């Protein structure tokens, strides 16, 4: 057991830290569209310095970083409060899927514009009637003129309004068992058969969208993997999502923890500071402990991946734990604020900070990227080996 960084890892951390200090682009603009262009320029800058495809193999323009280095990189990005890159889904899912399952032509065509942020990607998996039970999705692809005509509806599609490409899973064989009749396509979003409508969230923002497809056309060469193998390809995508984002999530949680402690130290309660209240102290300490355990468990998981080559279903434990801690932390922050927590962020009576926004945003943590309820099923069935109800 050695939890210290090796000299190489330390050098890598210093390099990332130094680069971020020199190149940090500052605060993003208020306006949504301007903010997106800002994040696209930021990605371009990272791409030019060779940081964009941190986990990708060098032969495809990536950095070929080890898992530890990826963890360090994401932690440093959060620590420096660096803005998110524009093409996050292309980088953590699209690229890895093309690299693993794509043809040589596809690699040549798609990878570089993902890295540079020139082409934005989105992910068309969930549907109104296919959420946790993703394999029951109904979007149909029918063979037509050297390609496929796609009709159906997708939902919760982050960045669909900016995207050039959609990682689309559609049913190509309605008679096959539900996991076998699916195919993984790359769909051009810039065509008449595709309509995108924003979905406004409880925070008032529109991070995601609905996609309506009416006879949208996808040529044969845009299939990733084989016709009928879409489920397996989709699973790769989701695995990558979980492993890559865990470390960013962990670093962000640590920052949130620090902010909540500062909040308790600057808010009055019962004639003293909230940070002197025994109940607040007890709860903050518990959340601190849980966030640290989440961090340590992440590193334990990493050791396992490095040994066995693939992330195991244990990753589900981490995502579940993260969602709980993050939500409880923001609930506690709102409680510390008391009635002042109700004022809109930015109101003249608000005590400052974006706590209400964070409180609302974290409601999604136990839903997005696998609901906590489904994660419990995965842990029970695949880690503990308990029988399936279905």
């Amino acid at each position, binding site marked *: *057991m*050695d*939890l*210290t*960084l*090796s000299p190489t*890892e330390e050098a890598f951390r210093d390099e990332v830290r130094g680069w971020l200090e020199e190149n940090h682009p500052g605060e993003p603009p208020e306006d949504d569209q301007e903010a997106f262009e800002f994040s696209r320029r930021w990605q371009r800058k990272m791409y030019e310095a060779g940081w964009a495809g941190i986990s990708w193999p060098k032969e495809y323009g990536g950095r070929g970083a080890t898992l*530890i280095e990826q963890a360090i990189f994401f932690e440093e990005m959060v620590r420096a409060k660096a803005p998110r890159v524009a093409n996050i889904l292309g980088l953590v899912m699209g690229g890895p899927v093309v690299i693993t399952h794509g043809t040589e032509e596809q690699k040549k065509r798609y990878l570089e514009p993902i890295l540079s942020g020139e082409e934005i990607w989105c992910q068309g998996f969930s549907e109104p009637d296919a959420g946790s039970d993703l394999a029951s999705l109904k979007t149909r692809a029918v063979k037509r003129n050297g390609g496929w005509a796609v009709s159906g509806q997708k939902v919760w599609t982050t960045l669909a309004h900016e995207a050039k490409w959609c990682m689309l899973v559609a049913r190509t064989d309605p008679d096959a068992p539900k996991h076998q009749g699916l195919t993984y396509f790359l769909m051009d979003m810039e065509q008449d058969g595709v309509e995108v409508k924003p979905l406004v969230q409880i925070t008032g923002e529109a991070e995601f969208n609905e996609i309506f497809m009416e006879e949208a056309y996808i040529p044969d060469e845009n299939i990733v993997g084989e016709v009928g193998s879409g489920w397996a390809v989709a699973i790769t995508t989701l695995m990558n999502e979980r492993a890559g984002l865990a470390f960013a999530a962990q670093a962000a949680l*640590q*920052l949130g*923890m*620090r902010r909540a*402690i500062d909040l*308790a*130290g600057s808010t009055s309660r019962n004639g003293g500071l909230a*940070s002197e209240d*025994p109940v607040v*102290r*007890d709860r*903050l*300490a*518990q959340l*601190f*402990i*849980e*966030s*640290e*355990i989440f*961090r*340590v*468990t992440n*590193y*334990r998981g*990493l*050791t396992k991946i*490095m*040994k066995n080559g693939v992330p195991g279903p*244990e990753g589900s*434990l981490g995502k*579940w*734990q993260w969602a709980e801690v993050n939500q409880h932390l923001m609930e506690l922050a709102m409680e510390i604020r008391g009635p002042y927590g109700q004022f809109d962020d930015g109101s003249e009576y608000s005590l400052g900070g974006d706590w209400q926004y964070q409180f609302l945003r974290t409601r999604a943590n136990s839903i997005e990227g696998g609901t906590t*309820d489904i994660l*419990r*099923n995965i*842990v*029970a*069935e695949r*880690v*503990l*080996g*308990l*029988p*399936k*109800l279905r």
Partner: protein
Amino acid sequence: MNFDLTDEQQMLQAAAREFLAARLKSERIRELAESDDAFSEDLWREMSELNWPGLMVSETYGGQELGMVELVVLMEQLGYALVPGPIFSSMLAAIALEAAATDEQKERFLAPLATGEQRGTLALWDAGAGWTPDDVTLEPEPAGGGHLLRGEKLFVLDAATADFFIVGATDDRRFIVERDAEGVSIIPTPTIDTTRKQYAVKLDGVKVGEEAEFGGPGAMEPARVRAYTAVAAELAGIAQRTLEMAVQYAKERQQFNRPIGAYQAVSHRCAQMLLETEGARSAAYYAAWAVENEPQTAPLAASMAKAYASDAGTRVTGASLQVHGGIGFTWEHDLHLFLKRATADAVMFGDARWHREQVARMVIDGAPAEASRPSPEALAAAK
């Protein structure tokens, strides 16, 4: 960066698991639990041959001089197997001596502990006073170049089979008192956990010379940090075992024509047990690593581990009982033995809430620059 156990540590783990499974079947544990002192001469001899009592004792005094990670590996297995008797209490005495005793004291008392020839135990908490690790009130009375010790110590593990006691006094002072010294009497105090016996030790003006004294303000802190971590590891082992019992039962037990583990009310409870068990294990190993490699983080990491594992140990054993239903509530089933050990461990060396307050002192009041790395000033302020 690597979270793996070394080959040697894995061997220790496998050897302990195998040895304890062979020696401590349910009937044997119950036999010992029903005896007066839960002590088995044979088991003690074999554990001594495996060099467990001297696991962390330095080689100078005949020990293995292994580290905290090895101790955590062993403690996890001791909890998993629910080992009765004085192995843990005697290791705690060794840790205390190693932390602050003089060379002469180590020669005289630590060396026989390392070989298993003698046993020691801690006698820290005073009757009528508090029970947290920092709350020791015995005030030694100066008498003719030495001291007289007067008081009554509670929660003394395995006193009947110990050769000497490490008696706690104010200002983190310690006195070595032999069991058969004049003025010492031992009273059994039956507790919820019958597998590890506790006693009251009365000190009725026990005369101790200068040569019996060690420690001083703050001197025992390294021993305490190790003790918190060790108990956390035992709790992780107990949680692991009762989780496995619950999962096994949920696969076998049929109701409404299916195994009960197919129902999410049961399977999600088991998943929660795994989450807490793994969390306790992560915390215990992190603390063990900190003790060895990052002493400035160790008090924080050890309190985190003891806080989390105390809750996890009691919750996971309780959840396992619930999964077992009525059979889990019977004397005949072993589950209650684990639940009772977890209950006793949870309040040993400070309960979850006390340790959370220690965490709060370090991370809230200390206001370190980074949430996960308290500054030395913050740690000093916490003391």
